[in-house]
């Protein structure tokens, strides 16, 4: 997917040039007013900007050519409520569904209703729904068009934690079921880390970072202050199950981590996220403490963090065990005092203590 747009809106100008993977979720991240919505509108064809747009080899827009919105097989979940006020929830859902030829439908009506828990509200009118209920209907309506590109503008921000937790797995599975690219605007680093494969960061209408999620997250000089949510993403395989304690072990080049077993199978590939704030460093290995995951590592670099007194330390895992130099690093966010006390300088061996690990999919 290739997108290149230039447009001017009074006080704001958008000028982007993007290569995005044709599969997976790309998170669009950036300050309020940085142009995320504007970019989505350009891609959808709602805003006619100068530029080129190619999705999976199909040209949607180029000099002198502009595919009209309704001919673009995409779905758009708007940032603000956008249900048809004159149609019941059911008719809202059917609106896009009916307009997709039967042969192209990949999601059934019942599936969408079940995924987003809409069973009880099908006959209601939109003005009788709560904010979160409305947003769920909007998401289901979008999915029912079986799009080949999904644009979502902060789809979960009106939802509570539980609803989010319930919906996210479906969104995660979406690109497996539909195998389509998703462009996902969010302000929540949690959602980024959990859902995204790629990350694009916008600032004042320009792309300031774009790349694979784990790379972008691990890069120490990322201009976005991911703050509390800086960390790394690891690709691992389930290598051991411990049914007694509901745990499983995930191996990756450079080590292994124990984590809660959420019903994984042996050899299943999973993605793990380890936040820098959850990592502490020790100079020796301690057995009499509660953290299960203690891994040998070597300090690779130490850099100032976003706030004084805090330091980001990057450690290489595998080097300690003498394996081939690999790419698995960990980020640890420590106080400058600890770094000084432990004399953490590049090359120093240390133990990485991981307090918690999250599974991304």
């Amino acid at each position, binding site marked *: 997917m290739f997108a290149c747009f230039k447009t001017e809106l009074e006080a704001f100008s958008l000028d982007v040039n993007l290569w995005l993977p044709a599969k997976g979720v790309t998170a669009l991240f950036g300050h309020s007013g940085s142009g995320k919505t504007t970019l989505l509108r350009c891609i959808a064809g709602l805003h006619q900007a100068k530029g080129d747009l190619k999705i999976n080899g199909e040209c949607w827009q180029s000099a002198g050519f502009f595919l009209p919105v*309704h001919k673009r097989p*995409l779905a758009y979940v708007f940032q603000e409520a956008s249900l048809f*006020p004159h149609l019941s929830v059911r008719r809202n859902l059917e609106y896009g569904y009916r307009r997709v030829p039967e042969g192209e439908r990949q999601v059934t009506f019942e599936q969408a209703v079940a995924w987003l828990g809409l069973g009880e509200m099908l006959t209601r009118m939109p003005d009788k729904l709560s904010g979160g209920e409305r947003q769920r209907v909007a998401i289901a309506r979008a999915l029912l068009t079986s799009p080949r590109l999904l644009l979502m503008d902060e789809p979960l921000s009106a939802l509570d934690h539980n609803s989010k937790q319930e919906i996210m797995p479906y969104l995660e599975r979406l690109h497996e079921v539909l195998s389509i690219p998703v462009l996902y605007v969010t302000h929540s680093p949690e959602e980024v880390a959990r859902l995204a494969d790629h990350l694009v960061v916008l600032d004042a209408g320009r792309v300031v970072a774009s790349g694979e999620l784990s790379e972008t997250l691990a890069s120490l000089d990322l201009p976005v202050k991911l703050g509390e949510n800086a960390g790394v993403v690891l690709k691992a395989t389930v290598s051991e199950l411990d049914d007694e304690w509901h745990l499983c072990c995930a191996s990756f080049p450079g080590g292994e981590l124990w984590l809660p077993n959420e019903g994984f199978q042996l050899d299943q590939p999973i993605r793990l996220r380890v936040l820098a704030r959850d990592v502490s460093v020790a100079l020796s290995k301690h057995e009499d403490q509660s953290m299960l995951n203690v891994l040998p590592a070597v300090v690779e670099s130490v850099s100032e963090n976003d706030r004084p007194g805090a330091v980001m330390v990057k450690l290489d895992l595998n080097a300690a065990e003498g394996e081939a130099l690999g790419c698995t690093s960990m980020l640890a966010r420590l106080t400058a005092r600890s770094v000084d006390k432990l004399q953490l300088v590049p090359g120093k061996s240390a133990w990485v203590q991981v307090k918690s690990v999250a599974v991304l999919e």
Partner: protein
Amino acid sequence: MEFDWQPVWLTLKLAGFTTLTLMFIGTPIAWWLARTSHWLKQPVAAVVALPLVLPPTVLGFYLLLLLGPQGVVGQITQSLGLGTLPFTFAGLVVASVFYSLPFVVQPLQNAFEAMGERMLEVAATLRASPWDRFMTVAVPLARPGFMTAAVLAFAHTIGEFGVVLMIGGNIPGETKVLSVAIYDHVETLEYDQAHLLAGGMLLFSFVILLTLYLINGRLNKGVR
């Protein structure tokens, strides 16, 4: 006295045809006016409202000139083998349409403008073509506007009089509508007949309007 139903049917037929025609003509004009930013927008809007400022008989007179055998339009209709329009039912419809156009265009334009872009954008992303989203989104959302337009056009045509008299020639069964009939009674001092017709017309119209409004009110609430 045998009651003469002909003017009643004729009136209803005229009002019905006119309203229908007006909807078909007025809707695209209103839609264009609501959406465009062409420099012609305001001039066209002003021209649409113009027929209103001429007294109906005077408007009728000019239509007579225009549509008559020497008139520009008359020449055209004649060369097309349609004859001339004055003194025909078709002519009445044309004149009424012309006269009531603003009552249809203005409320529709307001309704379309009030609607904003968002819902149409949503429909577009849900695969609805421009025509499709016009029919399934714009029209339902503009329903109060359509309602008002139809009521004003229908009622105004029923009550219309000057233009009809002028262009219609008051031919019984063809162009003699109810309003003309009542007028005749008033002019000839047959007040009793006038009261009867006018009263009946008011009652009938009231019932029609009330029914229409009640249905509309119901629709506004219910699920469709």
